[in-house]
């Protein structure tokens, strides 16, 4: 569903968080991600002051409880989903391996903010993240080239711009517009999302207003609207591919947890349903395997088991 989404609401204390969530629901956002910002995640151990092992908060602690969510969506027919997100700053390339650790991968969304050219290149090309944050509080110094950005576009990694800092301060407004226009020039308006990053509930803006803001960044109308809707949905499907699907290929779910609209899969997958009574013992399995009866015990499939006609040529067939 291409619903309007705000994928960056920073984590804070309970009451303020509840206010922000209420405000975002009222404004019309259907999916929201609570951002746990941890700048120390990727700092090498030697530089840390404390000797304790740095513990990343688990997503359960960040997300609000069910009662809070119910109180926010009371009486409203619109769905409201809250996701968890973690974001860090990447200063050195060598520390990026920590992002693959289990604790970080548990989050629904992972965002990284590169600070140097090398880390930016690394984030675009290889890192297993969903979002690359472009800092709007400073002028973007790094050289952007088509070769740097195109791997990110192909992989489905999205660039994020936050608009709340520009509401707070006028210099940040200048930086936001300058950085955004530079980014749009190189990525042609694709793969960009606009998020809030708000510190107070009053810094949130409605989805159509944020889409209008996109027009200032040299985007056309359709692209500007996509930054709040379609592109955010694409980020979510990228994170699903990273999290649920092993190597983006296979996903496992419990039958009980399937949604109502997916239950037909279970019916269709049952081979024995509505079939004639089958007597396995009498029905000789060996009938199928006409040629190599010794391969019955093999678990792996044998190409010869299908009906093979005799060939006039004498060719040595490959056996698996």
């Amino acid at each position: 569903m291409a619903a309007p989404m705000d994928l960056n609401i920073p984590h804070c204390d309970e009451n303020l968080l509840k206010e922000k969530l209420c405000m975002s629901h009222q404004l019309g956002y259907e999916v929201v991600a609570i951002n746990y910002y941890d700048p120390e995640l990727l700092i090498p151990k030697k530089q840390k002051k404390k000797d304790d092992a740095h513990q990343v908060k688990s997503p359960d602690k960040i997300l609000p409880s069910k009662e809070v969510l119910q109180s926010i969506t009371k009486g409203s027919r619109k769905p409201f989903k809250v996701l968890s997100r973690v974001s860090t700053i990447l200063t050195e390339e060598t520390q990026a391996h920590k992002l693959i650790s289990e604790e970080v991968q548990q989050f629904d969304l992972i965002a990284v903010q590169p600070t140097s050219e090398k880390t930016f290149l690394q984030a675009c090309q290889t890192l297993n993240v969903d979002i690359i944050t472009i800092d709007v509080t400073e002028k973007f110094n790094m050289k952007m080239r088509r070769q740097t950005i195109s791997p990110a576009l192909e992989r489905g990694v999205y660039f994020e711009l936050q608009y709340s800092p520009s509401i707070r301060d006028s210099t940040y407004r200048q930086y936001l517009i300058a950085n955004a226009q530079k980014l749009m020039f190189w990525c042609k308006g694709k793969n960009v999302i606009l998020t809030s990053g708000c510190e107070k509930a009053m810094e949130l803006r409605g989805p159509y207003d944020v889409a209008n803001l996109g027009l200032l960044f040299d985007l056309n109308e359709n692209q500007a609207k996509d930054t709040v809707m379609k592109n955010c949905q694409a980020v979510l499907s990228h994170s699903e591919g990273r999290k649920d699907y092993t190597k983006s290929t296979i996903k496992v779910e419990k039958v009980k947890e399937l949604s109502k609209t997916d239950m037909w899969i279970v019916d269709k997958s049952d081979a024995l349903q509505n079939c004639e009574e089958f007597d396995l013992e009498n029905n000789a399995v060996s009938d199928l395997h006409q040629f190599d009866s010794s391969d019955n015990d093999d678990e792996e499939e044998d190409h010869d088991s299908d009906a093979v006609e005799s060939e006039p040529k004498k060719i040595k067939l490959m056996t698996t």
Partner: protein
Amino acid sequence: MKRVVPTGKLIFERTSFLNENEKHLQCILTHSFNSSIGVFLPEHDCVPRILGDMMDDQMSYYVEQVPLNLLTETDFIKGFVQAGSLCMISYGTCIDSDDCVAVTPEGMLVMSLCKDTYQRCGLDGHLSKAGKNIEKFVVKVDLKSDKFYPGTKYYDRVQWCLSQMANFDFLVTWIPNDGKVCPSSIQNFFKTKSIQCNRLKVNKTNHEFKNFNIPIIDPAVIETDSEQKSCNYDEVFEWLGACAVGIDDYEGDDYLSTYSCPTPNKQASYCIYTQYEGIIHPSIVKQYINYLRQFMKDKKLPWSSVTVHGFVDSPLSWIYDHGFHNNGDNIYTFLMFPNDEYWLYRAIGGQDICP
């Protein structure tokens, strides 16, 4: 120079009701999903009672959580789709972010689906033409078709696919072909299927204007010239919109507003604007406009206007795909004159297709 998409488009036509080639009936009857109808009567103090009764007598319902395969069952098709003119539109769904479903009076089930739902649905459809790069797919099923009956592969496939989809809430209005059948039988039908179905109340808003400036409009003159016999057509449309919202006292203070009634204008002692909101069947709109034409001639009004708004979230506007970019208008206004001439304005969204 970048190509700028307009915020909205306005189509203007000037013709007469008596003209044989005119398409006013087509405009009214193909605009299936009407959410409100508003009438402006200059130099008159109240809307005739018959029109009010017409609106109140109309049976429209709000039905909750309808499974879509119910709409393809034979008893529903024979009893309602074929035996009358059924208008259904899904409620609470935004056309640009959710799935929207509607049934037109011609018996077409139209679904505007998101990419995700379309890929899980299994029915064939095309990309929505309401704008560029919009990832919505429109699936149409002809319920009145001869080939659509149980036993055919197509029917079974449609039934199976629709049963996998979620339930929707609908706004329903039905007019039976046979005058003896009561329209409330559709409510009984839903109740027998244990689906909650409540009568929808038509909201009425009135704006009365006293000692109010109204523009002088000559049907033959569209644009003002040096003699200034008649107002510009677009200024009149804007002024009608201002009246619809109830703006009456704007001529006083320059600081608050620089807007003024288009010239040439004259003062009228009473004017009234009445709007009815709900779901209004196109044939009722047609009766309404016909009655109003006669009423205008009888009471010798200089002109009168009827504005019909379509649903912002409807999947169709007239016969084309409808979308919402930042504007979901699909409204039309008849500005009628006693000599059977009329001006027809149609306003649509910037990326919609012109009807």
